[in-house]
């Protein structure tokens, strides 16, 4: 605790030095709070959040489209909300069947893939209108969804201990890959050759070779891994441990734990922007910002109640 302000000063110093040349490429991080029903923008390097945008009750998961627009799922009310690329306006809200939870967006931004938590299937919706275009059955309680550059969709089937692979062109499941117990979060390596799976109840991360569609390693993390991200160079896996209240930093090759950085209570979503990791502390109503060079928490930003999901829209103007 004592170290936080000190490290914070270093971070600020680095920030000020680095700010001018980086402004154009700096990324805003968005955090959705399920309890409060809000979206907050965290400007690059800022130690406080922007004004909360009311997005409707219970936003659970969120994904950014190629143009920077944000889509949020509301499982309790059966809705998807579209927030414009400035992050400041709710542009549209669609009703969706079932309990929409995990969400991924096609590379061209035209289709949304939304997991129906209670319906054990993935729905394809028109991003423009919210129209249901098709469905594909997956395992029980689909949690996280991610899509790769070739249109392969990976689904963490929480109560089936597997990842379903869906070819989105055909809307057909082409593989199921056994993983640990209660897979919840997923992330792809920057090259797309590895899929990392956070298994809540077995305290592990499964490493999937996406070309061969099989688990090639299982890394012991301990506790309850609820969120996973990868460093921009692909060398480190970042895992939130909800039980210990830490961000566990794992070597992507050896699986060795390099650090367990204390954050808030019940951390869940984790995202990387530049050389910082952002962790949504669900219980503590805050976001921890971790410097990936020092592996220390540099500051903690208060946000509205129940933050779970983070999104980092692509940089504008690329």
């Amino acid at each position: 605790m004592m170290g936080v302000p000190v490290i914070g000063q270093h971070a600020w110093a680095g920030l000020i030095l680095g700010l001018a040349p980086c402004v154009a490429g700096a990324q805003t991080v968005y955090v959705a709070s399920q309890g409060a029903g809000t979206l907050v923008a965290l400007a690059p390097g800022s130690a406080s959040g922007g004004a909360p945008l009311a997005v409707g009750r219970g936003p659970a998961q969120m994904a950014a489209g190629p143009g920077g627009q944000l889509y949020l799922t509301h499982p309790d009310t059966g809705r998807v909300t579209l927030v414009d690329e400035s992050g400041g306006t709710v542009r549209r809200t669609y009703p969706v069947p079932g309990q929409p939870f995990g969400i991924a967006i096609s590379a061209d931004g035209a289709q949304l893939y939304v997991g129906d938590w209670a319906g054990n299937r993935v729905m394809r919706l028109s991003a423009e209108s919210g129209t249901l275009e098709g469905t594909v059955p997956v395992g029980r309680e689909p949690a996280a969804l991610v899509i790769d550059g070739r249109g392969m969709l990976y689904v963490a089937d929480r109560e089936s201990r597997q990842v379903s692979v869906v070819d989105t062109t055909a809307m057909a499941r082409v593989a199921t890959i056994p993983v640990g117990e209660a897979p919840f979060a997923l992330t792809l390596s920057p090259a797309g050759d590895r899929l990392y799976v956070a298994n809540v109840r077995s305290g592990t991360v499964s490493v999937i070779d996406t070309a061969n569609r099989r688990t090639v390693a299982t890394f012991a993390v301990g506790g309850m891994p609820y969120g996973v991200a990868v460093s921009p160079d692909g060398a480190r896996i970042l895992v939130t441990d909800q039980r210990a209240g830490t961000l566990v930093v794992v070597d992507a090759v050896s699986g060795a734990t390099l650090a367990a950085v204390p954050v808030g209570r019940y951390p869940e979503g984790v995202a990387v922007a530049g050389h910082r990791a952002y962790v949504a502390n669900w219980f503590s109503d805050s976001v921890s910002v971790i410097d990936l060079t020092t592996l220390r928490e540099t500051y903690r930003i208060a946000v509205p109640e129940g933050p779970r999901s983070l999104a980092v829209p692509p940089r504008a103007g690329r």
Partner: protein
Amino acid sequence: MRLGVPALVLILLSGAALAHGPTPQKVDQSIVIAAKPDVVWKVVGEFAGIGSWHPDVARSEGSGGNGSGGQRKVMLKAGGTLNEGLDEMSAAGLSYSYRLSDPDLKALPVSSYSATLTVSPEGDGSRVEWLGRFYRGDTGNEPPEDLSDEAGRTAMNRYFADGLKGLKAKIEGNAAP
């Protein structure tokens, strides 16, 4: 593709029986006790011993020891049994974490939870913090009132608060002046 109304109803109903819903809820209770942390821990740190201090508990029994993987069966005075598994016991940190193994809506109107109890120094005494994350009893989108988020919050907060009050009474009542 279009789904008919009966198909939709089936899909919605099928969710109600599953163990987890999409909207977690918080429970957060704490109390200050006029006794040193190690004294408090002696009472509260035995996972299966909750029956000795929680006033809502009729009886508790354990199996598998006081470490990770240990189980306790907590029979409540008002009816129902909580089967709970110990995830982590930190005697050095005066803290343990556990979770519900199987829901029993008679005992508590929730479908799952994880929780942590921690004893820390506070002034000359201790603070005991008991917090957790849970899902309502009916995780479908139209829960009856008695299995709603609100019902879960009320029951969980009462159960934790009752327990801490009982713990305080037991320890302070037994403590030498």
